[in-house]
C-alpha cells in the first residue's frame, strides 16, 4: 500500500517531546471529525424519525448495517464486471446503496410501524427492537456469519504537517468521508427547509391531525422520512466500509447505540443537533483516547452525555417539548 509519509522508525531515539503539541492534537482532531461524521450521518435518521413520529427507531442501526452490505455487494459486482475507474465506482455504489437501503427503510416502516401507529406509545418501539433482530439475523442468514472485508479501495493521502518527526496525515478516505457528509447534510437541510416535502414534514412534526386536515398526506410524509433516514444511513454504511474496510451483520448494534447517543446529545428532533452530537461523541472518544486512556473512552462519552442532559435536558440544540392541547 503506498504511503507518502516518511518512515517513522525512531532510530533508537529517546523521545517524548516529538509531536506532543499542536501537531498531535491536529492529527487527533482529524481522527475525531471523521469518526464523528459517520456517527452524525446515522444520528440524523434517529432524529428525523423521532421528530415526526415521536418514536425511537431501534432498527436504524441495522438499516445502517444493511447499507454497508449493499455497498459491499454493489462494489464487488462493479469490480467483477471490469469497472476500474474509482470515482465512477464510488458514485454508482453510493446511489445503488442509497436506493436499495431506502427501500428497506420504507418496507420496515410499512410493515412494522404503520400498523401500530395509533396503538399505545411503546408498541412501535417494541416492534422496532423486533425489526432490529429480524434485520441482523436476515443478513446473517443471507450473507453468512463471517466478517466481510474488502481490500483498501482508496489509498494514499496528504501529509499536512511534519514537525520533529511527527507527521500529520490526512488520508483520501478521510477527505471523502467528511466531504460526503457535508454535502449530504447541506442537501437534506435544504430539503427540509425549502421544499414541499420538507414543509409537510415540519407540519407533521407539529400536529399530524391538523396537517392531515390541511391536505398533507401524513402516511406518505412519514414514509418519506424513513426513506431519507435510511438513505443517509446507507451513506454512513458505505463510508464505514471504505474507511474501516469491513462489514459484519452485528455492526449495526454498537454503531446504532453510539449514533442514538449522538442524537440525544445534540437534541433529539434537531437535524443540525444530530450532526453536532455525532461530532461531539466522535471528538470526545478520540480526544479522551488521545490524552487519557483508550480503555475508558466510552465511559467518558456517556459521562459527558449525562452531564449535558442534567443541564440541558433537551440536548445541545433541542427545543423543549411544547405541551400540545
Amino acid at each position, binding site marked *: 500500500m503506498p504511503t507518502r509519509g516518511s518512515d517513522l*522508525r525512531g532510530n533508537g531515539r529517546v523521545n517524548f517531546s516529538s509531536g506532543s503539541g499542536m501537531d498531535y492534537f491536529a492529527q487527533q482532531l482529524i481522527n*475525531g471529525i471523521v*469518526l464523528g461524521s459517520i456517527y452524525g450521518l446515522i444520528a440524523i435518521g434517529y432524529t428525523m424519525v423521532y421528530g415526526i413520529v415521536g418514536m425511537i427507531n431501534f432498527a436504524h442501526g441495522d438499516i445502517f448495517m444493511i447499507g454497508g452490505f449493499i455497498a459491499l455487494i454493489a462494489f464487488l459486482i462493479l469490480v467483477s464486471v471490469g469497472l476500474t475507474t474509482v470515482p465512477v465506482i464510488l458514485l454508482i455504489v453510493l446511489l445503488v446503496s442509497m436506493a436499495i437501503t431506502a427501500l428497506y427503510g420504507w418496507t420496515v416502516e410499512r410493515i412494522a410501524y404503520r400498523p401500530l401507529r395509533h396503538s399505545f406509545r411503546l408498541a412501535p418501539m417494541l416492534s422496532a427492537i423486533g425489526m432490529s433482530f429480524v434485520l441482523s439475523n436476515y443478513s446473517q442468514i443471507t450473507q453468512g456469519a463471517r466478517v466481510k472485508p474488502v481490500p483498501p479501495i482508496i489509498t494514499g493521502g496528504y501529509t499536512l504537517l511534519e514537525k520533529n518527526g511527527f507527521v500529520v496525515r490526512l488520508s483520501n478516505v478521510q477527505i471523502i468521508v467528511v466531504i460526503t457528509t457535508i454535502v449530504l447534510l447541506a442537501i437534506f437541510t435544504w430539503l427540509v427547509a425549502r421544499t414541499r416535502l420538507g414543509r409537510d414534514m415540519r407540519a407533521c412534526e407539529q400536529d399530524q391531525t391538523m396537517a392531515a386536515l390541511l391536505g398533507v398526506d401524513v402516511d406518505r410524509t412519514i414514509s418519506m422520512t424513513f426513506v431519507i433516514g435510511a438513505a443517509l444511513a446507507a451513506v454512513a454504511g458505505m463510508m464505514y466500509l471504505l474507511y474501516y474496510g469491513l462489514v459484519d451483520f452485528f455492526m449495526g448494534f454498537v454503531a446504532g447505540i453510539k449514533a442514538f447517543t449522538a442524537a440525544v446529545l445534540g437534541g433529539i428532533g434537531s437535524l443540525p443537533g444530530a450532526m453536532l452530537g455525532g461530532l461531539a461523541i466522535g471528538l470526545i472518544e478520540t480526544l479522551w483516547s488521545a490524552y487519557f486512556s483508550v480503555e475508558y473512552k466510552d465511559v467518558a462519552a456517556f459521562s459527558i452525555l449525562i452531564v449535558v442532559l442534567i443541564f440541558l435536558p433537551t440536548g445541545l440544540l433541542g427545543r423543549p417539548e411544547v405541551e400540545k392541547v
Partner: protein
Amino acid sequence: MNSLKLIGLAFGASLALSSAAMAQDLTIAVAGPMTGGESAFGRQMKNGAEQAVGDINAAGGVLGKKLALDVEDDACDPKQARSVAEKIASARIPFVAGHYCSSSSIPASEAYADGNVLQITPASTNPLFTERKLWNVARVCGRDDQQGLVAAEYIAKNYKGKNVAILNDKTTYGKGLADETKKALNKVGFTEKMFESYNKGDKDFNAIVSRLKRENIDLVYVGGYHQESGLILRQMRDQGLQTVLMAGDALADKEFASITGPAAEGTLFTFGPDPRNKPTAKSIVERFKAKGIDPEGYTLYTYAAMQVWSQAAAKAGTIDPKKVMDTIKGGAWDTVIGKMEFDSKGDIKQIDYVVYKWDAKGNYTEINPKAS
C-alpha cells in the same frame, strides 16, 4: 381426513425411527464461535471436528458405535458459552471439543464439570483454563505463558533499544497474553514504552494509532484477536506508520490478510510449529485439500482433540468422562499433530511456539528467530 391421519402417522413413525437411530449413535460436540468476529476460527474447529468424526466412523466408530457431531455456537460470548455448556451437559453428551476464546472456555468448563462432560480445548491458551484443578479439562494447544515467553524473546533480541508498545483487548485471552509477554520482557530488562487496552469489537483505532506515532513505536504487540489486529494494522498504514505488528496465535487464519490487504506483509505472530507440515498430518491434510479446505490454524488441533478422546475411550472401554480423563492423563496418544502426553492439570507436556511472518501475498510462514 383419512389421508391426513395417515400422513400424521407416517410422520410420527419416521420421527420415532430417526430418534431410534439417534439413540444408536454416540453424540459428541464441538463448540466455538460459529458466528461473530471470531467465526473464522469457529469454522476451523467445525472443519476439523467433522473430518475427525468422519474418519473415526470410517474406521468403525468408538466402542462399536458411530459418532454423531453436535455443533454449538458460543459467538465468543462468555454468557452464551455457559448456556451452550449447560445444553451439552443436559443432553448427556460425554465429550466436547471447545471452545476457542479463553473467556468462553473457562466459564463453560465449570458447567461441564458439574454436568459430567469431558472438555478438551483445541485453542484456548489462557493458563487459567487448566490452573483451576478441574477434573474434566485438558488442552491440545500451548499456554500463553509459554507463548508470551517466545514473543518476548523475539522482541528482546530483534528490537533491542527500540520502542515497543503493548496493547490488549481486555479479554481473558488478550489481556492474559499481553501480561505474560510484558512480564517476560520486563524480566530480561526490556521496558515497553506504552501499555494500553482497547475494547474488543472496536473498529476505530485511529486515536491509538496516532499515539503510537507520537511515541515513535517500532513494534506494537497486540494481545487480541485477528479482526482488531487487522484494523489496527490497516489504520497504522493509513496514517503513514510503518510500525511492525506482532500478535499471538489468534492471527493464524487467512482472514487476517483479507482484512489488511497487502499491508499484512511483515506482521509477526506466534503459533505452534505448523501442524500441516508434520509428517503425521500428511494424509489428513491431503483429504482436507481434496475437499477444498485449507486445514490452517486450529483445524488439525481440533482433529487431534477428537482423536485423543476417541482413542482414550476405546482404551478405557467406556465413555464415562471421569474414567476417560484418567486414561487420557495416564497414556500417550498418537494424533495428527504428533504424539501427545498430558500432565495432571491437563496440559500437554511438549509445547513449543515459533514465530511466523506474513508476506504480501497473504500467506504466513515460520521464521527462525535465531537466524534474524
